[in-house]
């Protein structure tokens, strides 16, 4: 199996540590080896609103570092993924901005020649590891567990840049969920934004979008919404929990579980190590859906 340069981004190591831990555990079980490149910097995503040069330089430096290490990148965050893919497309074009980025990178002794593949964690599981190999590792399949799969905008769209899955009726995450024995429910707002990009800018808008989504998932009969992006996860988990405690409500509408947590548990990995208790909203109940084969 290939080795990948693991791209964590900025949110995961601080705010969604359990995503990193669980993804590493699952990948290790599946024989995917990872290399940490400490020099990686911000993917550029948060700078896209304000400064194209800062965005493109940040993103491209990461590509150049991976290229130098002769490794493809394995990205955990949808927004990092979208930003890096966008930068890759932009750097394939000629222009003043591109030229400037190349010069600034040369000052750091780096160059980027387009020889890096950027892969999302889930793509690696689906395409490189394969559903069959995953299935063989499932020790305790779920029964009667309903999951609402949440794709996250920046892996799906713009599809011509992201090349992740069919943007209108994607199935990659659903297939990965089904392999664990859980059922993937159909829910109308599946492909909508989680609301995270507006957190801190317009919190009412942001929460309205989140609330609509989780209400929709609940109506579809889901027990959990399954995430694979720190922004989405923060929104469904941290922000939902904050809203609940602000409004003095006890029960969460819809807890969120990270895909590697969902998968790891069904592979028989230790829930504590997978960071189940690190989620803000309690998801310990998911264990009750596991069945010995």
């Amino acid at each position, binding site marked *: 199996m290939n080795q990948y340069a693991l791209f964590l981004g*900025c949110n995961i190591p*601080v705010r969604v540590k359990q995503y990193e831990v669980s993804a590493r555990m699952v990948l290790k079980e599946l024989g995917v080896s990872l290399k940490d490149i400490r020099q990686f*910097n911000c993917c550029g995503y*948060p*700078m896209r*609103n304000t400064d194209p040069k*800062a965005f493109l330089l940040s993103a491209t430096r990461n590509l150049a570092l991976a290229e130098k290490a002769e490794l493809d990148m394995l990205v955990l965050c949808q927004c990092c993924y979208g930003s890096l893919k966008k930068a890759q497309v932009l750097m394939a074009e000629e222009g003043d901005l591109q030229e400037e980025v190349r010069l600034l990178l040369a000052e750091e002794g780096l160059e980027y020649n387009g020889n890096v593949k950027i892969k999302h964690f889930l793509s690696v599981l689906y395409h490189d590891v394969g559903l069959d190999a995953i299935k063989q590792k499932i020790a305790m399949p779920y029964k009667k567990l309903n999951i609402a799969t949440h794709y996250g905008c920046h892996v*799906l769209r713009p599809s011509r840049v992201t090349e992740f899955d069919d943007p209108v009726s994607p199935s990659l995450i659903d297939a990965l969920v089904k392999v664990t024995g859980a059922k993937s429910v159909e829910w109308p707002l599946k492909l909508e934004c989680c609301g995270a990009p507006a957190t801190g800018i317009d919190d009412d808008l942001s929460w309205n979008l989140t609330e609509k989504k989780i209400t929709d998932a609940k109506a579809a009969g889901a027990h959990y919404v399954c995430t694979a992006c720190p922004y989405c996860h923060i929104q469904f988990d941290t922000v939902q929990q904050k809203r609940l405690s602000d409004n003095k409500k006890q029960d969460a509408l819809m807890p969120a579980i990270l895909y590697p947590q969902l998968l790891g548990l069904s592979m028989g990995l230790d829930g504590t190590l997978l960071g189940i208790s690190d989620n803000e909203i309690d998801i310990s109940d998911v264990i009750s859906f596991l069945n010995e084969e």
Partner: protein
Amino acid sequence: MVFDVLLYIALGICGLGLMVKVFFWFSRKIGYKADAFTTSARLVAAVKGLAGIFFSLKIFTLLKVFIDILFQIHMLKENPLRWLMHILIIWGFILLLLMHALDDIITMKIFDDYYSTLNPYLCLRNVFGAMVIAGLFLAVWRRMIIRVPRMKTNAMDFYAIIILVVIIFSGILLEGMQIASPSVFLEMEEEYAALDDEADMRALESFWVKEYGLASATVKEPFDPEDIEWGQELNEEYCAYCHASNKWAFTGYATAKLLKPVAVGLDHAGALNFLWYLHVLACLFGLAYLPFSKMFHVIATPVSLLANSVMSRETSSPANTITRQIIELDACTHCCTCSLHCSAMMASKARGNPYILPSEKMVILKDMVKGKKLSPAQHGAIVEGIYLCTNCDRCTVVCPSGINLRELWLSVREDLVQKQGSEPMMLSPFSLVRGLNRNLLSGEAYAKPLQQTQKALAGEFDEITRPDRTVALQEEADKKWLLHSDDTDFSCCFGCQTCTTVCPVVKNYDNPSESLGLLPHQIMYCLGAGLTEGASGARMLWVCLTCYQCQEHCPQQVKVTDLLYELKNKAVQKLEN
């Protein structure tokens, strides 16, 4: 006498300086909560906090951190080369201070047999000096020769290196000169040997010239082997009991060898006096200036490390957090480890704003808490610098001084945006962490800077979009703000409004036009008509989630979301110019 006067002056200045600095720890203000506490309230809180720690198990945490400080374990894990540099300098210097500078107060009291010219003291003094030199060499190597990217060197960094270089090298030169000096030899000979016979004198001097690095005007090589042999015997008899071979003082001995051709002349010219004054004055200057220089970190950094080991946002009084943050500014040694790992480092390069880098923010924050007036450009740059932060916490994780930069940014950021009123970076995902911490602020304080920023970016939007206003349509000549060459395909828009129909933001409002100013398809119309000024003021742009539904669904493949991004970029650029 002169020495005593100078010493007491230096100690006085240093002591007063330390008192003033410690007073500043409690009186200077930082962060958005600073006005809530007076100096006396902060002093009381500190005493209470300290008492709480000394009478709890946290005292053991302090002991553990103290050991960490002694061996700089924090730094070893982060960067072994820097650790080696620092450990060589601090331990070399501390041991010189204790064994050599304070010999009559400390070393003599502990070791009965202490004599500065006897081993192991003679040799150790040189070993410690050599340690400092090796450390200084590494410091200069890192800062000036290999030029680590984003490691900036300012005047204070130069001062710190220069004062240590002057102290150590003047000391070695002084020792070298003492070894080579005929007058010093004569003095010692008179005091300890008092030889009457000229042949004896010549023999002893010859031996010292040959073996001990002495320079001489009277005896010259080649020496008579008998003289040397006799000299050695005399040396054994009169000198050896309180003077080991100068070769043990290897740095001084090497210097003496280098000085040999000119040593007699220098000795006559009073070089010994000059070097003694240089060495002593450099030491005393370093001592007196310590509280006001980067060297103050020898006190502030351990205090910061200890304080941070027992404090947390949940349990500590906010008054103590403010005090700690002022101490942390003194604890920063501008080592730039934070900036080497800063995730936003490339934004600093692209935007030409050094204050995006944490180490440079610390430098300007020091000036700001002192009340130094900043130019409007500097002020804008620091607000942007502190907001353009991905909150990845890497700086906090790697800081060898244990500074809680995460908390520092949080409190200073809020203070600055409240005062500045608007900052374009607020309307970007950089606001995530501010949003997650909104409970720290009142609803009004939280919303105000966001509203003001939107207003500043909207420019003359309201004026331009007034229904009764006539606008001239003209194609925009300069399309440089577009990222892709084919971005101009907005002209293919045939007005189907799919972009608006699929937009989750539009769907969120009962009256979207009123809430959002312009809807996505209207913004595309504006672009087609060359009305970018009007388009970039619409609130729609700044609450766009960039979910790409519009772009994905456009039957004409207009890059709607990308165009919204580019309009935002253009608006920010306009506001900045």
